[in-house]
C-alpha cells in the first residue's frame, strides 16, 4: 500500500478478488509509520468493510522488495497483488522496478495490475500460456477460475510452435503436398497437446479458443494478448528465478514484462503455504 493515485483502485481490485476466493487480505506498507500515514491507512481499511475482520495491515521498513517478499513468506501468502507501469524505460528494465523485482523473485503467485479500476470490470478475454512450465496446468486451471461464467468470457489458450522456421527449413526435401503436411502437422501437434491437457482441467461455462504462435513465445504471447484486448494474461511461473542475463537473452516472461499488454498473473503454488492459506 504505497498511497499512490492508484492505491484506492488497487484496493478495490484486491477486495473483489478476496470476495471471489473468500480470502484474507494483508495490506503491506513499507515506510515510516507516521500519524498521517496511519490516518490514510485507516481510511483505506474503512473501504474494506465488506471483508469484516479478514483484513490486516503489515508495517515494514527497509528495502521494499525484501520487506514485501519477507512478509509474504512469514504470512504464508498465496497471491501477491501489485500495481505496475505498463512499460519501463531502458534503465528501469535492466535495473528493475520494485513491482518487477517482486514479480521475478516471489515464491507465490503474483497478480500485476496495470490499470486498476474502482468499478468492477469483468475479464472478458483472458489469455493463458500453455507453454511447458512446471505450473502450466495450475496456470490454465487458475485462468478458468478467473473467467466469469455469466459474461461469456473467452479463454484463449496459446501454445508456441517451437523453432517453426528451422523445422520448415529442415523439411526442404519434401514435395509441395508433403511440405504442407509438415507445416500443418506442426500446428496440429501443438493443438492436440493443448486439447489433451484441457481434458483434465474443469472449464465448464468458459469458451475455449486454442491458438498457436511461432517465434519468441513470450513476445508472441504478449502481442496476441494485445491484439485480443485481453484484460488478463496468465502464465505459469518459470522454474527458476531470473537474473540480469535473462534480460540480455530474454526469457519468455521478460518479453512480457518489457511491455505489459494487460494485467499479468504469474501462477505458482505458494512455497510459503501452510495447511490453511491466506490471501
Amino acid at each position, binding site marked *: 500500500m504505497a498511497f499512490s493515485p492508484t492505491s484506492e483502485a488497487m484496493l478495490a481490485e484486491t477486495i473483489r478478488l478476496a470476495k471471489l476466493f473468500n480470502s484474507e487480505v494483508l495490506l503491506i506498507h513499507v515506510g515510516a509509520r507516521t500519524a498521517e500515514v496511519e490516518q490514510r491507512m485507516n481510511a483505506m481499511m474503512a473501504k474494506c468493510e465488506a471483508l469484516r475482520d479478514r483484513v490486516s495491515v503489515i508495517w515494514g521498513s527497509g528495502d521494499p522488495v525484501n520487506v514485501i517478499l519477507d512478509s509474504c513468506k512469514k504470512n504464508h501468502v498465496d497471491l501477491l497483488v501489485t500495481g505496475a507501469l505498463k512499460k519501463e524505460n531502458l534503465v528501469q528494465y535492466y535495473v528493475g522496478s520494485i513491482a518487477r523485482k517482486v514479480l521475478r523473485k516471489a515464491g507465490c503467485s503474483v497478480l500485476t495490475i496495470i490499470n486498476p479500476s474502482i468499478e468492477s470490470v469483468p475479464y472478458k478475454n483472458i489469455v493463458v500460456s500453455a507453454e511447458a512450465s512446471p505450473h502450466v496446468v495450475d496456470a490454465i486451471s487458475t485462468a478458468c477460475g478467473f473467467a466469469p461464467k455469466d459474461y461469456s468470457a473467452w479463454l484463449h489458450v496459446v501454445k508456441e510452435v517451437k523453432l517453426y*522456421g*528451422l523445422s520448415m527449413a529442415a523439411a526442404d526435401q519434401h514435395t509441395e503436398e508433403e511440405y504442407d503436411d509438415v507445416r*500443418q502437422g506442426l500446428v496440429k501437434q501443438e493443438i492436440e497437446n493443448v486439447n489433451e491437457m484441457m481434458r483434465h482441467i474443469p472449464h465448464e461455462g468458459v469458451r475455449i479458443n486454442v491458438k498457436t504462435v511461432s517465434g519468441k513465445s513470450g513476445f508472441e504471447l504478449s502481442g496476441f494478448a494485445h491484439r485480443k484486448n485481453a484484460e488478463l494474461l496468465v502464465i505459469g511461473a518459470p522454474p527458476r528465478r531470473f537474473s540480469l542475463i535473462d534480460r540480455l*537473452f530474454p526469457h519468455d516472461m521478460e518479453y512480457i514484462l518489457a511491455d505489459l499488454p494487460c494485467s499479468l498473473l504469474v501462477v505458482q503454488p505458494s512455497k510459503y503455504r501452510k495447511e490453511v492459506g491466506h490471501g
Partner: protein
Amino acid sequence: MGKFPHDAVVQLLVQLAVMLLAARLFAEIARRLKQPGVVGEIVAGILLGPTVMGMIEPGWFEALFPTGTASGVVLTGMVQVAVVMLLFVGGLEVDLHVVWQQGKTAIVTSLFGLVIPFSLGFIFPYYFPHFFGFADNYTVTIFALLMGTAMAITALPVIVRILMDTNLFKSKIGLLVVSSAMIDDVIGWLIFSLILGMIGKGGHGMPIISTVILTLAFTGIMLTVGRGVINKILPWLNKNLAWPGGILAFSLALCFLGASFTEFIGIHAVFGAFIIGVCVGDSEHFSERAKEIVHQFINNIFAPLFSVSIGLRVNFFTNFDPWLTLVIILIAFVGKVVGCGLGTLLGGATWREALASGFGMNARGAMEIILGIVALENGLINEKVFVSLVIMALVTSMTAGPLMKKFLSLPNSPTSTPVSPTPARGQP
C-alpha cells in the same frame, strides 16, 4: 562496373543451369534413398568435375568449366557469396533463447560434445602431422587446432531433419541435442576464426594480436550491443517497408557488411556472416516466416551451387587416401559419439538416448565442408585431407539418421501424417 564479355555471359548461365539441374537431380535420388540432399549435390559435383567427367571426357569438362576465364572468376565469386550466405543461415538457426531455456544441461552436453572431439582431433594430428597431410605452411599446433575444430563442428539442419523424422524434435532430448549443437557451432566457428586470425592471412598487414582482439571484440559487441540495435531497427523496417523485401534486403546487407569486416581484419568472411545471422535470427521481430523464406531461398539456390562446386575444384580420385580417410572418420565417430553421448547422459538421458544423441550430433553436413574449403584456400590443409574431410562429412551425415533410429528402436522410415488443423490468425 566493368564489361562482361557476351560469350562469358552465355557460359556462366549454362554453368549455373547445369549445376542447379545436376544438384537437384542427385538430391532427389538421395531423397528417395532417405539421405540428406547435400549428399546427392556433392555427388553431382564429383560427377561433373575432374574426378569423373574430367577423366572420361576431358574436353567436355574443359568446355563447360574452363579455367582462367571470366565466367570462371564470376562463378567462383558466386560460390564465395553462397558460402557466406550459408553461414548466415547457419547463424539464423542458432536460437539463443532456446539455448538459454535449456540451461546448464545444454551447456554441459555441448561442452562434452565439443571438448572430447576437439581433443581427439587435436592430439592425433599434433603427434602424427605428416600422416594427416600437414601442409608445412604453418606450425603443427595451428594445423592440429584446425583438425580439432573440424571434428567439433556439427550440422544443425541434418540433426533437426533426423529429429523431426523420428518425432523427437520437440522432446526434452531433442531440444537438448539441438541447443547443444547450437552452442557447439558458435564456439566452433569462433575457434576457427581465431585460427584464421593466428595464421595472419590478409588483414592488410595487421598484427596477429590485433586480428584476435578485433575478432573477440566483434563477437562480443555484436552479440550484445549489436543484437540490441538490430532488434530496435527491425520493428521499424517491418512497419514502414514492404514485407518481406525490406527485412530481407536489410538482413542480407548486414550479413555482407559483417562478412566484409571479418574478411578485412584477416579472418574469413564466413565468421562475420555467421555472427550477423545469430544477431538477426535472435530478434523477436525477425519472424519465423521471414526465416523460412531466407532458408528456402539460400538452401535451394545457393547451397546446391556451393555443394556442386566442391566436386568441381578437387579430383576426388587422385586425392583419395583410404587410410587417412578411415582414420579421420574413426576420430570423428569416436569423438562425437563419446563426447556428446557422455554429455547427454549427464543431462539425464538413458544410455540409448545418449548414444542416439551422439550419432545425431556426429552429422557434419555442409558446415564441415565449408570449414574444409576455407582451410584448403588458406593453405592449412592439402587436397588429400580436404577430400577425407568431405567423405567424413558425407559418411557422418548419411549414418546419423539410421544409427539414431536404431538406438531409439524406431522404424527406419519418415513419419509425417497429413492433417487439417485450423491455424490461428497470422500464425503458422
